[in-house]
């Protein structure tokens, strides 16, 4: 079964908020109605967002890492927000595993937001219904767009490709490969919600070189035993010739 999801690479996220603004721009312009803002140009601006980027400082100076942490609906495989919804407005699509809210059925009781341990849902203070990330469901299937653009707005906006989009249940997909190869993990696994979105941890790029790899194994001179191998501290032809 298909489970579309995002994989967010914390190793390359620079915290630029491009995903936040492009998400807001795309989704506030959609047919589902705008995402309301209050005091947008004033003191204490607030509003509805599907995606937010937070910043954490890990460790004590001088051994610190700044981790930018984009946070949106994780499209859980066992979404705790869905069964609690009294109207059926919250649902998980069989087709692709996206968790959605039917804004025409939602009564704005906020119970689903209580039942989400991640705080991924926000009530729209104007429309008075619960809103959340849709994985740009109105964009990823839009055949009027070129195929390369049939991705969530946040993924397209990310300048460092920290956001990957794909089917996490397909073992050959790019996202599955990334999760496998780079230690992708889920948030709060202790609650058994099985989030579909994964995060890739901060990692150092190391390469291990052994001593024997510094020597050219297939050196023809060495192979033919015409000349003895020079000692390591001896001058070689390369040292004399280089400038």
């Amino acid at each position, binding site marked *: 079964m298909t489970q579309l999801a995002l994989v967010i690479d914390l190793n390359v996220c620079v915290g630029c908020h491009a995903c936040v603004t492009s998400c807001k721009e795309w989704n506030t312009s959609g047919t589902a109605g705008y995402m309301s803002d209050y005091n947008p140009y004033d003191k204490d601006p607030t509003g509805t967002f599907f995606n937010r980027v937070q910043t954490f400082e890990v460790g004590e100076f001088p051994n610190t890492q700044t981790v930018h942490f984009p946070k949106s609906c994780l499209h859980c495989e066992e979404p705790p927000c869905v069964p609690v919804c009294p109207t059926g407005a919250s649902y998980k699509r069989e087709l692709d595993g996206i968790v959605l809210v039917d804004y025409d059925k939602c009564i704005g009781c906020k119970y689903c937001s209580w*039942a989400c341990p991640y705080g991924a849902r926000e009530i729209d203070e104007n429309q008075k*219904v619960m809103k959340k990330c849709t994985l740009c469901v109105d964009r990823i299937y839009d055949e009027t767009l070129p195929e390369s653009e049939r991705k969530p707005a946040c993924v397209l906006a990310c300048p460092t490709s920290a956001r990957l989009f794909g089917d996490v249940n397909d073992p050959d997909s790019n996202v599955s490969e990334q999760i496998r190869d780079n230690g992708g993990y889920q948030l709060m696994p202790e609650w058994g919600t099985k989030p579909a979105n994964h995060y890739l941890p901060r990692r150092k790029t190391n390469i291990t070189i052994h001593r024997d790899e510094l020597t050219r194994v297939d050196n023809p001179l060495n192979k033919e035993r015409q000349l003895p191998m020079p000692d390591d501290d001896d001058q070689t032809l390369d040292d004399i010739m280089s400038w």
Partner: protein
Amino acid sequence: MHPAFSVIFLTTLIGVGQGLFLALYTGQLYSVIKVLPVQDSPGFYGYGSLLALVFLVGGLFSSFFHLGRPERAWRSAAKWKTSWLSREVIVLPAFMGTTFIYSMIHISGWNPVLFSLSDALVVDLSLFVGGINMVLAFALFICTAMIYACVKFLQEWATPLTVVNYVLLGMASGFALSTAFASYVESDLIHFYGGWAIVLTVAAFITRSASLIRNNNIKYKSNLSSAIGIRHTSIKQKAQGSMGGSFNTREYFHGAKPSLFKSIKWIFLVLAFVVPVALLTSALATDMFILFLLAFIVQYIGLMAERWFFFAQANHPQNLYYQSL
């Protein structure tokens, strides 16, 4: 969590309504098996259950203020298979309807005998309808409490004690009101109800204290490390993704000063349990209506504080993403 007054009123008012009906029906049931004297049917059971209905209507009315889209409230009966909230939405009107029928049977006096189990045990219509309504009353207590108890990561709520507390607190306040009502109509059940009101209040005090002790020693399953998936003992939040706050910073934090938060706990313990028991005891000794009424009013105010504390104390794991609040 941020305590919403609509939900505080809803849960406390319907609790009183359910408790009052259960008190009245217990009186009727006991009179059938000749443990208690029979009461004046319309004046006592009839108007008494109408009074219970007033509280239920008040609770239902208040619940609409919790909804963003109250005009769509009817939709919430759809998912009763999975949602306790949906079940409550079905059971509450059913309970209200049956309470009204029960009341009308007594007031109209049209109360045919349905069958008799023995010469002494005659089941009439009011007893039958009341029996169904008693089941509904307990079902409603369970639905209301399970709305909170079923959210497993709100660890302060996810305990059977939540259900026990909702049942006992609702019944205690309902029996306290029934005592005042019995005193007002000068029924001879004052001491029966008063005694039970004290017993239920003491029982509720024990179970509510048990949940307070449990919540004091709670071990949270989630921490900042599991929330963002970074294993380190020192993680400081530098930005939380919004400047002027968001739904996340408003809905999940009670926003009260720690001193106020702590004092509410002691206020509700005194007002919901200690003072009502003292007032009821002295009222039972003096048989003064005003003291019975005062006992109920004080206990109701105490229960509102109790409900406020119940919500405020629940610590949502999403708050881990908002460390600087």
